[in-house]
């Protein structure tokens, strides 16, 4: 789960990581008042969207006078960034930046350890640096028994800054970032850039925190920060029903059990010249009800012209799925043709059910994908 910059900064503040004076606003009036009364002008107006490249897209502007505040607020609050409409902005104190650095923490898949990463170049995407000059990233690993020990934080500080005072200020921020990361089941916590201002103080100018979806159950306070407006309604709905759904731009709706097979199904549709409308994993031990829920979500996408079921039953029982299809067809009044490929546990029963109902079924997924494409025309 992702949160907005302004939410991440609230968490930073709670943990004592220094951030600029800031206020989140939802409309132009709020921006004008915040800028003139609370933050001061000049100030920075930053689009609050959960995608990278806001700056390049014109979503971050420095306003030097009241007119600019109003103009930029209007412009940014009206724009879309990578297809996402900007509904909130952050009005932020203008900081005179002396230097920029990067500080971030993740659980590293390769070493299976929590790793703090520092880079003397701030404001750049860490993945880009990781590819282009990995040696510029300084990595320090935590030990889960003792956490991120003070000397490791100091090591980071001393890598980024020569002056001990600043290095230890940075060490203190590093320690807080680690605690936040661990205590909140974060999957990424990033300060990019971490800046030194004119007075020599360290400030987290931007903040990014992603959370481990698997850890959310123990953090209801984080779950409640979810910005439902900025997430796809159907993806949310799917999650609430223990389904995993991602909308794509095609017209062949896919219903699959298992994430790997779901991706393989999308890829296969594309491979044979079709366009998948979605990723949809109905998971294991599917009941007929679950299949119905899945179809309900799928059909909210008006682009869907054909539905392709690809089920390889292990935990999932094919007859459950077949029954689910029939039920859904009745209740939801589905007009689109359905191609079903159900194999594995109880496949014979499923076949009979489908046959009786006069539905199209295929033996292999190749056949199924081809059939679905064929039915488009």
């Amino acid at each position, binding site marked *: 789960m992702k949160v907005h910059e302004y939410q991440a900064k609230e968490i930073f503040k709670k943990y004592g990581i220094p951030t600029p004076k800031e206020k989140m606003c939802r409309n132009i009036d709020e921006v004008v008042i915040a800028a003139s009364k609370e933050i001061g002008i000049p100030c920075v107006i930053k689009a609050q969207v959960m995608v990278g490249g806001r700056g390049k897209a014109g979503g971050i502007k420095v306003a030097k006078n009241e007119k600019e505040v109003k103009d930029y607020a209007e412009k940014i609050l009206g724009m879309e960034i990578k297809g996402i409409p900007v509904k909130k902005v952050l009005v932020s104190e203008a900081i005179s930046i002396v230097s920029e650095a990067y500080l971030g923490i993740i659980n590293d898949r390769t070493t299976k350890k929590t790793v703090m990463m520092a880079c003397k170049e701030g404001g750049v995407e860490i993945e880009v640096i990781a590819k282009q000059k990995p040696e510029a990233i300084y990595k320090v690993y935590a030990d889960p028994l003792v956490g991120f020990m003070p000397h490791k934080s100091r090591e980071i500080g001393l890598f980024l800054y020569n002056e001990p005072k600043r290095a230890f200020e940075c060490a203190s921020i590093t320690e807080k970032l680690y605690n936040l990361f661990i205590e909140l089941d974060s999957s990424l916590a990033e300060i990019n850039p971490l800046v030194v201002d004119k007075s020599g103080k360290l400030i987290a100018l931007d903040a990014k925190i992603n959370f481990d979806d*698997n850890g959310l159950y123990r953090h209801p306070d984080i779950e409640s920060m979810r910005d439902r407006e900025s997430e796809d309604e159907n993806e949310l709905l799917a999650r609430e029903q223990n389904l995993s759904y991602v909308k794509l731009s095609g017209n062949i709706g896919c219903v*699959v059990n298992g994430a790997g097979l779901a991706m393989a199904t999308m890829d296969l549709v594309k491979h044979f010249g079709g366009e998948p409308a979605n990723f949809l994993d109905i998971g294991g031990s599917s009941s007929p009800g679950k299949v119905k829920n899945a179809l309900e979500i799928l059909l909210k996408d008006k682009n869907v012209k054909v539905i392709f079921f690809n089920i390889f039953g292990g935990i999932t029982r094919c007859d459950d799925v077949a029954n689910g299809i029939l039920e859904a067809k009745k209740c939801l009044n589905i007009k689109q043709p359905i191609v079903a490929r159900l194999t594995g546990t109880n496949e014979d029963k499923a076949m009979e059910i489908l046959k009786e109902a006069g539905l199209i079924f295929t033996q292999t997924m190749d056949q199924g994908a081809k059939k679905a494409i064929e039915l488009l025309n």
Partner: protein
Amino acid sequence: MSILINNNTRLLVQGITGRDGSFHTRQMLDYGTNVVAGVTPGKGGMEVEGVPVFNSLSEAVKKTEANTSVIFVPARFSSSAIYEAADAGIKLIVCISEGLPTIELVKITAYLKNKDCRLVGPNSPGLVSAGESKVGILPGHIFKKGKVGVISRSGTLTYEIVDHITRVGLGQSTCIGIGGDPIIGTKFIDCLELFADDKDTEAVVLVGEIGGRDEQDTAEYVKKYFKKPVFGFIVGKTAPPEKRMGHAGAVISGTSGTAAEKIKVFKECGIKVGDTPAEVAQLVKEML
């Protein structure tokens, strides 16, 4: 021969009294797996499908000499189930449960480091040594004893691949679902090391997906050290960036971890890549 599990596997089912635990106990017994014990705290003394249930792993291991365990308990109890198995002296723990927070795996990794104990998973469908033993939820009927090793990050996709391999007339030595989470106990390379020494395995199929760089690292390893033919299949070519595709580990970060990148590295390292599951099976058939 085979790797990890075989006729000597004495299996213990953690969470045996649950819906999935009991269902798959039946399935595993039917496959011929030697299921010797089950554990559900508080249900000691019961029997499930003829298998005795104990209150604790330590008691169960003492009484039945179980050496392998499979975990079917809900995610929030799974870490603790893994620790209990490791403490009881289980040598191979297969965690089917999904939904464990990643930080738990960091801890588990540190805990298991100094124990003589291997973890497969979490979020693994389990493994099958064809004709010998099945641990987990893979459907047994698709397997045929043979010479192809299969290692996969996914569940049902593995069945699909295995099914194709069987249908082209080949069979499997051992098939391992390593799990779809970002941090897992046993990775591709760990399995390859075992397959390298397994005389009955003549080729290996790697089933990878978007996210992380485990496939890339594995490809480098194959190029340098692995002498048997290796085939690959990567899914998620049509997946958009920054979106989690079901598996906790299946996310393209920025421009890294894409299917294209992985397929490229596979090919560069001499791994033959199929475009569809059917094609992978064909490639293997042509080689063997």
